[in-house]
């Protein structure tokens, strides 16, 4: 069924959005789509629709349409849409799978189970070091790597995906705890003079073909 997108609400209250900050900017992308797929048939399904598969678990792969497939385990992927279009051909294919699954593939409602924040800027790894025990330094955590870890004591998925040569990290975590996590991020960003940006501004100079 077609649903009025205006009925969809972000789990966080963004008080004030401002311009991007080269050093550290946070945006709430929770209103964008994202898809999950689980089951033994995941890789076969993705291969069948021509998706570029990540090489291993905890790695993501950029697709031709700008979307991103993050492999969370041999039997689970998370698909993020292109920031420019909000679309993903892979995601659309997943959306056509019925709730009870098909071919050993089961859709997972990641657009609702996980809030999605994007952090961008050179100081992002330092900010993360206040919240997360994984070393996300740029020379240690390569582009497109995925960490399934704890951020501010919350189970989270961190994906590094550069934007226009600037480090960027997608952070996905429990949508019910989204406001808590948002507040933790704002607190941690303070010493780096981080700013909050609108999702659209963040996407403006997004280079979907960057590797």
């Amino acid at each position, binding site marked *: 069924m077609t649903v009025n997108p205006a009925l969809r609400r972000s789990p966080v209250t963004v008080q004030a959005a401002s311009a991007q900050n080269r050093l550290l900017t946070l945006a709430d992308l929770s209103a964008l789509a994202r898809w999950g797929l689980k089951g033994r048939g995941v890789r076969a399904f993705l291969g069948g629709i021509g998706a570029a598969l990540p090489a291993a678990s905890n790695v993501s792969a950029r697709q031709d349409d700008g979307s991103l497939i993050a492999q969370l385990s041999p039997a689970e992927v998370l698909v993020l849409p292109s920031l420019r279009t909000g679309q993903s051909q892979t995601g659309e294919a997943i959306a056509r799978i019925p709730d*009870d699954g098909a071919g050993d593939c089961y859709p997972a409602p990641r657009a*609702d189970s996980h809030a999605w924040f994007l952090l961008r800027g050179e100081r992002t790894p330092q900010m993360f070091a206040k919240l997360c025990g994984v070393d996300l330094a740029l020379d240690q955590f390569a582009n497109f790597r995925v960490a399934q870890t704890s951020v501010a004591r919350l189970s989270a998925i961190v994906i590094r995906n550069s934007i226009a040569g600037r480090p960027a990290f997608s952070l996905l975590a429990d949508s*019910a705890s989204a406001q808590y996590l948002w507040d933790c991020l704002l607190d941690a960003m303070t010493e780096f003079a981080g700013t909050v940006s609108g999702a659209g501004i963040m996407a403006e100079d997004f280079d979907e073909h960057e590797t």
Partner: protein
Amino acid sequence: VTTRLPSPFGSHIDRAKPLCFSFESRRYSAFAGDTVASALIANRVWTFSRSFKYHRPRGPVSLERGEANTLVTVNGVPNVFAESHLLAEGDVVAGQNYIGSLHHDWLGWLRYCGRFLKVGFYYRAFYRPHGAWAFWEPMIRQTAGLGRINTEASHAYYDKAYLFTDVAVVGGGRAGLSAAIAAAENNERVLLIDDGVRLGGSLQYRRDAGEIDTEIARLAAFSTVTILDNARCEGLFSDGWLAVVKGTRLYKARAKQVVLATGAICLPAVFRCNDLPGIVLGTAAQRLIRMYGVRPGNRAVVLTANDAGYDVALDLADAGVEVAAVVDMRASPDGANLLHGRRIRVIGGSEIFAAAGSRHVTAVDIVATGSRDARERIACDLVCISVGTAPAIALAAHAGAAIEYDGANAQHLARSLPAHIRLAGSAAGGAEASHPFPIVAHPKGKEFVDFDEDITVADITDSIGAGFDDIQLLKRYSTIGMGPSQGRHSNVNSIRVAARARDLAPEEIGTTTFRPPWTGESFGVLAGRSFDPVRRTPMHRRHLELGAHMMVAGAWLRPGYYGPPADTTRAIAAEVTGVRHGVGVIDVSTLGKIEIRGPQAAEFLNRLYVTGHVKQPVGRARYALMTDATGTIVDDGVIARFAERHFFVTATTTGVEGVLRSMYFWNTQWQLDVDITNVSAAYGALNIAGPQSRELMALLTSNMALDSEAFPYMAVRVGSVASIPARVMRVGFVGELGYEVHVPFSFGEALWDAILQTGQNFGVIPFGLEAQRILRLEKGHVIVGQDTDGLTHPHEIGMSPAASKPYFIGKPAIAAHNARGLQRRLVGFRIAGTGGDSVQEAHLIIENNEIAGRVTSCAYSAALHATVGLAYVRPHQAPPNTTIEIRGNGGKMIAAQVVTLPFYDPGNERQAR
């Protein structure tokens, strides 16, 4: 009279930036870069505090962080090390541990009571006669403790951060710098941790230390090097985990390799009145001179057992201090050579027998080593000690190194370090020679081994005489090494005294355990920034707008009721009435939600739950009860079947994590072809309940038939509600016609808005957890965890598993319970009249003066005009109409009648209509 020395003395102070501060309400001047300690001494103030037990005046000994003598209160913050706090304009500093004033301490008379306050006196006194402790305790508490916590202080911001590195180097002296540079040249990421405001360690104050700035600059040029100065490594744990405190932040550093270049700790000598202000370590005098440009005294005596003492003497002479004598404990020192021809008197083969003075040292008595006769008294206002060092090996010990006494060098050394840890420089031993026994016992005592706790030589020998001869027992009985410095200056000397008292070698004594923190942490660091996730439902903002009183349920926040706290009872009653007579809506998003999908989904659930699910029709829901392998009830919920191989399971708010763990655990063994997905946060959920709920739902749906035939009780449907994709279940917890609507989390708020807006014509009311608890109690529904406990099995709450079901987890255990016979039974009870006001949950059921059970739920029911509840009773009390006795508030016995459940709508007509 100024004590400041001209440049180049005073490398750490900026003479162009004078500042003022106060100490004990008197104003003093200082320079930027001064510490409290250096500034006070520059102003000829040597007494910083009073000692813990005898209230003796105390001043700095080492000018290294970590001695109780220098704990002061700065701007209301107690127990600040005076040698560590960099002064700022207007700082207000006060001494500690006195009554009256620092110079006229009313408890100063305690210094004359040593013979009555021997070690362990508090173990033998104060407890007799019976009740004496109540008399003594207030007095002891008044005098004990260090500093006063300012309970009015504002909160400070303390936080934590991780650091990651290849090589962590602790200590920024010569060895640490060399190690850091070597690692950096090897393309390693390096973290250098140093507790000074500048790198260099002892090179900053030692005589002829050589140039260090070039190396510092070289190190800083590496982009892969991070320097944390003015930071303290307080602990070193497994896997290269270092706890580092810098300011108000705790760094949790992870290093693949650790180099401990922590240097060595200079040790004091022990002689009578060695605690007098003005008696310091030689390195303390050198710090004052070179770092702060302070001339520490006018006439000095240097006590030494190594060559370093002569450097101290030369530094003192250079600073204009008259060096009355260098007293060398060695038999034949080469004084003339070591003093480079300076005209300073050297007394070889001698030691200090005692110091004289009241508030400050005024003289020392010198004797030939081992002799107690032919003393020579030398007047002085400064005594500098250089009798040896102890490698700073606490961090190595934290990491598991073995600590052994090296008799040849009279030092404790760290051996058998973990492979990723290395020692460098003085921390590995080999600093200046240590005297094996720089201790001179005095017939009148007062030779302090431990300044923190006022422990003397006699205290140690007395403890051993009392049988506490093992070093661990000795520590605990005497409290030596248990003060703020954690034995930094007392451990080695106490071991030496104990060894001599027991006629053993120090290596046979062993050591106490080195525990973090190394130098001490503030409560702020320990308690600072922590993370406690809070979960909010998608309707949270709306609940707050409606004035909900939020309650905590696990990590979730849920509305308890809507309305001001002052009107709680009325608000809850109104919500109950609204549901019973109209329609209400409750946010049940916190329910656990799990998708079970796959060809063997039905079999999987059938094994997990007491209830049967293999034959559950598609489009139907069933109540589901879960037990563990012991037959104990662990959770309940509803299982809806949306397709042949698709089930949607709800679990209790706080039980879902356990349910998931159980699912994963068992299917690891069963290997059934199912997918288990936790979707608890993916769906928001509301329960619309009340006689008018069907009418309200009809206005919200267009693609779902709602009449009782098309959508009967316990049926489930997929459709849309308020134009939002929804899963709808005709289930309820409150005993009224109801619909549980699950929608994607992001649409939860929109659904709430639509229901409240559309429901205005019906007077729809939001209701909270409190009203729901009453409504479900009227219906006799149990809450797992409240009406069940860690032993409850299904028969005890009247739920008998189907005998025909061949297997489910807990079935064998439940069969064993049944074979043993019921020991208790959960029943409903009713209390007529006002007696119910005295009954609360957890009150006891009493029979023949014995505990026969307990109340698990209890509330006044307006619908039933009585107090009703659930209680465990003995099986013979379970039949309806049995009278039970409840011990209510104040021990009042209340009679209650056992009744058949449910209390409300026993025919289930309202819920199933």
